[in-house]
Each structure stands twice: as C-alpha cells, then as structure tokens.
C-alpha cells in the first residue's frame, strides 16, 4: 500500500502543468533523436542540460529521462523503415523489422514495436518501484568502503560488457578518472592539474566532454558515409497489428520485458545486450527459427520490449545507490548533481518528489509515446527525409550553442571540439568512450570514498576486504578482469559480445 500511496504522490508531482509539458518535450525530443541517425540520446541530453538550469530538479529529470526512453521508441522507426538503427539499442530490430517493411508489413512492425515498447516500459516501471525502495533501505547502511568497491565493480562490469578490448577499456577508465580530478580537490579545496589555464579551474565540464565525444564524434564518423536513404512507403491505416501478430508477439514481449529489465540493471551494454539476448532466445524457442531474418514479428516484438524494459531497469542503480550503469544515466546523475542533489539511498527520504515524480512521469511518458509513435508515424517519416548535408551543420551548431550557453565560456567550445576529435580517433582505433565518461562521472565520488575509507582505517587497505559486500564486489571485479585473459573465457566473452 505504501507504494500505491507514494505513486499517487508521484502523479501529483508529474501531473503539474509544467512537469507535464517537460515530460512531453522530453519524449518528443527523445523520439526525434531516436529517429535521426547522427545524434544519440547522450548528445541530446548534454545539449539540453543547460536548459534545465532554470527549472526545478524534478522537472529537469522528468525531461531528460523522457529523452532516454523516448529514444528507445524512436530508434525502431529508422531500423524498420530505412534499415539504419537510430541508436544502438535498435540494431537488432533492423534484422526482421526491415524485412517486414520490404514485404509491405512496415505498419504491423512499427505497431508491434510501439505497443511492445509501451507494455514493457510500463511493466519495467512496476519492477523499478518494487525493487528500488527496498534496495535503498539496504544501501543506507553502506559506508565509503562499500561505495568505493561497488563503483569499482560497476566500472569493471561496464568495461567487461562493452564491445572492444578490456585493456583499452581500463586505459580509458584510468584516463577518465584522471580527467575528473582536474580542478578543485574536494577534500582540501586546493586547485590541481589546471596547467595555469583559467578554464580548467572548475575542472573539465561534463557537458562539453559528452557533447564532443558523442555529438561531434558522431558527425565526424558520419562524414564518411553521407549516403542517400531509401524509405519504404507505408500508410497510416496499416499500423495496427493483426490478431495473429498479437498471438505471435505476446510471449516474446513478456520474455523481452523480463530479460530487458534484469540486464538493464547491469552496467555497460545492458540495454543493447538485452535486445540481442531476447532475439537469440526467441529464435531458439521458435518452432520456425528459419523465419528469423526473413521478417518474423517475434524478432521485432521481443527486442523492442527488451530495450524499453532495460531503460526502466537501468534507473535502479542510480536511484538506489547513486551509481550510474551507463553514460545516459551518468548524465542524469550529472544533472541531479548540478542541481545540488546527490542521488542514492537518501533520495527517497530527502527528495521523494524526484523519485516518485520521475516514475509517475514515465508512466505518462510511455502513454504519450504510444500516441506520438502511432498516429504521427507519417511525420517521423518526413523528418527522416531531411538530408544529412542539412542535418549535420545544424547538429554541430546546436552543440556549439548548447556548450556555450551552459557556461558562457568559449573555453568549453575548445574542450568540446578537442574531445570530438579525440573521440573520432579513439573510435577509429577501437577505444570506446563509455568507460572514460563513466569513470569521469564516478571519479570525484570514487576519490572521496577511497580517501574517507583510508582515513577511517588508519591507512589500512585491509578495510576493503574486511567488509563482506566490499570484498565480494572487489573479488567479482577481479574475476571479470582476470577471466578476460583466459582463452576459453575470452572466447565465451567474444561470443556474448558479438551476439549481443
């Protein structure tokens, strides 16, 4: 009953006119970002972070969260119609979704994708409500030792599950950690690693860094493939799936929801991994696996449900522990911290409006997305027709304006461009930016907890092994790193990553 009572309170927050408008803006922009290849949710969220300065923290999180799960909906549109995934979590939808479109069944593919996303997103929220609060009650008892070890574990799992090599991932994390230390020492207040540059006195900005690594880098990478897109013609009245489509999709949606929700909690590629896991499971369970890849509706319903349930699940580590499992949630963490709010177990008692308001807004947002994605599909198709040559300069301009408006400092434009260039080189050489960004966000918390733990223990590293949760976390992290060097486990990881 407590949950129901809190949820009603959440709705009273989310249904305030301004929050309702922000929710709509968030899901609208999210769908747009999902539809348009070239800018992903992290870039869009970084772009809009400065806009949130003037609004309440709960309004800011409602809007930014809307962009996140909105992009999960929108990403399927390009996958089905153009065979280009709007974002990484929709890659697997291309396989059968586009085949359905080529067979003249784009409507049911888009329809089941939207309905499946709605059902999974809504059920995922129920899980979020039920798990978050009890987990937070346990997490209240955690000290700096547990937090430090949990952050190390989160970072290691992220690197383990991220595509690319573990060594490179660790190097990225080490670099991100160092970058996060630039500026003011959180304990002594002294300045460090600023190299005499005034622009670095407050540290490297999260917004220019993310905008560079995701926004500018995406554009630079896409400069190589400015190509024409062919869009399958569909009619709006064809959108609704048939009874047979529903019969075939019901179980895949249910299974996708479960897989997505639990994998979404994992740091790193949990969301992307869940879509491939769902696809692989449906293919395995199907009586006609040969239809997969030829336009099987189960191959659309399962993964689309999985990525939306995963987006709900990924909020759990943020709200219950204050630890972001992926870059997008790291940006939400950054947004909360910009408003002076520290996410974690105390959020439920100190700022219940933020957790319950956000959860309630997500129910509303999911319903809005259903309305946005079905009747307005024609509009999204028209947006897809905007040529890259017009789109790219506009995205670059929005990045520049966003970065400048966030700080009013030209230095941040340089930071963004430098990270954009570095991001391009990194991606070309097989270095993923996600470990760098997560380490950058976690860096100050990691440092504070490490230093506090060492001061508490009188300098003994044994404190990290004397507490059960801390010792277990560090042990799992160690096993993850070591396992990547064992040939048999290497092959298994490679299989998981290439399938996922």
């Amino acid at each position: 009953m407590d949950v129901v009572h809190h949820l009603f309170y959440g709705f009273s927050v989310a249904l305030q006119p301004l929050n309702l408008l922000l929710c709509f803006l968030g899901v609208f922009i999210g769908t747009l970002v999902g539809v348009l290849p070239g800018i992903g949710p992290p870039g869009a969220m970084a772009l809009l972070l400065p806009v949130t300065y003037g609004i309440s923290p709960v309004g800011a999180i409602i809007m930014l969260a809307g962009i996140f799960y909105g992009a999960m909906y929108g990403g399927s549109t390009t996958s089905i119609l153009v065979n280009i995934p709007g974002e990484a979590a929709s890659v697997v939808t291309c396989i059968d979704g586009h085949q359905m479109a080529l067979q003249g069944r784009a409507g049911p593919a888009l329809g089941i994708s939207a309905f499946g996303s709605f059902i999974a997103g809504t059920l995922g929220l129920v899980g979020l409500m039920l798990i978050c609060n009890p987990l937070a009650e346990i997490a209240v008892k955690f000290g700096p030792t547990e937090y430090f070890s949990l952050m190390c574990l989160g970072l290691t799992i992220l690197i383990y599950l991220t595509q690319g090599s573990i060594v490179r991932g660790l190097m990225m994390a080490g670099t991100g950690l160092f970058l996060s230390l630039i500026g003011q020492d959180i304990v002594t207040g002294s300045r460090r690693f600023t190299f005499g540059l005034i622009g670095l006195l407050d540290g490297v900005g999260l917004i220019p860094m993310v905008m560079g690594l995701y926004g500018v880098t995406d554009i630079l990478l896409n400069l190589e493939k400015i190509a024409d897109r062919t869009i399958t013609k569909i009619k709006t009245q064809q959108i609704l799936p048939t009874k047979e489509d529903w019969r075939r999709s019901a179980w895949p949606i249910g299974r996708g929801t479960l897989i997505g929700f639990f994998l979404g909690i994992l740091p790193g590629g949990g969301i992307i991994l869940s879509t491939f896991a769902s696809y692989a499971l449906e293919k395995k369970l199907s009586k006609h696996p040969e239809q997969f890849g030829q336009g099987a509706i189960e191959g659309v319903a399962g993964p689309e449900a999985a990525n939306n349930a995963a987006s709900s699940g990924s909020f759990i580590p943020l709200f219950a522990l204050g630890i972001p499992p992926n870059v997008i949630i790291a940006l939400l963490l950054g947004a909360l911290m910009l408003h002076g709010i520290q996410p974690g177990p105390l959020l439920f008692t100190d700022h219940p409006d933020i957790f319950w308001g956000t959860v309630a807004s997500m129910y509303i947002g999911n319903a809005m997305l259903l309305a946005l994605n079905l009747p307005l599909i024609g509009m999204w198709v028209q947006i897809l027709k905007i040529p890259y040559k017009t789109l790219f300069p506009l995205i670059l301009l929005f990045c520049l304006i966003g970065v400048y408006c966030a700080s009013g400092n030209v230095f941040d434009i340089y930071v963004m461009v430098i990270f954009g260039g570095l991001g391009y080189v990194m991606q070309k050489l097989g270095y993923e930016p996600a470990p760098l960004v997560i380490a950058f966000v976690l860096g100050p918390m990691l440092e504070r907890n490490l230093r506090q733990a060492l001061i508490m223990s009188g300098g003994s590293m044994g404190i990290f092994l004397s507490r059960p949760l801390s010792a277990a976390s560090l042990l799992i992290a160690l096993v993850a790193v070591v396992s990547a060097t064992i040939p048999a486990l290497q092959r298994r990881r490679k299989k998981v990553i290439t399938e996922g």
Partner: protein
Amino acid sequence: MITSRRGKIEGFFWFGIGMIICILGWKAGLGSFQEPGSGFVAFVSGLLVSMLGLLFVFSGDSSKVLPDARSVSGQAFRGAPVFLLLFTVGVLLGYGLFLETLGYNITTFLLMWALFHLFYEKGKNRLVLSFLASVATTGVTYLVFEVWLRSQLPHGIFPWW
C-alpha cells in the same frame, strides 16, 4: 589480432601518458595511506594506465576482442575524408576563436555558410543555397536562443547586433 608494431606504439604512448599522470599526481602531493593527498588517486590512475601500456608493449592486447576489423588491421583511417574532417574541426575551433569578438550573428553565419557550402553538391545554386540556408539558420537560432530563451549570446564588436 592487433599488429605488433602498432601495439608497441600504442603501448609506449599509453605508458608515457600514464607516467605523465603519475608525475602530475606526485607533484600535487601523494600524502600517505593514513591521509591521502590531492595527487594520490591521480597517481594510482597513472600507474594503472602505464602498467596497461606496458602490457600492450610486451604482450599485445591480451583480450583481443575487437569487433571492428579495420581498427586492428592498421587500416583504421583508410578512406577517411581527411579534408572534410580537418575542415570541420578547423571551422569549429575558428567559431570558438571569433565568437566573442565578432558576435553570435556574424560568426554563426560564417560557420554555417562554410559548412553548408562544404556539404552541398557542386552546382550553379550552391553558393546561393548555402547563403540562404545560413541566413535562415542564424536568424531562427538567434530568435529562439537570444530572444525567446534569453541565452545571452555574445554581441561582439557590433553591440547593436
């Protein structure tokens, strides 16, 4: 599998980066285990990076899970549009350089003209089209960000703009 020569170069690069971080951490003050200083965590992260760099030098990338074949075959930049890339990065840096001097409208117009001109196909109308698109973009964004959102964009040496 990573080519050994490239692996060594990358390894030495990261070893160097790690050592620089270590030195910076040491200079900032390591403190002690009982009371870690400002540079303690930086030193540890530098140590991690340099050790991983050495691992690259001596044994290559031991995990070898690199799905992008081009990134490991020494052809990572083959076919990259070098001029487009350098031009784009150059105009973005130029934007930062001139934004506060020339003001938002002039700098944005010049940036957009350069980018549209670069991306639009060659033809009789390229110059006119890119000019019109730049004027429209500058005008609309000025209206949205300066007039409606009051973002305080720089006016530069022409304060009446």
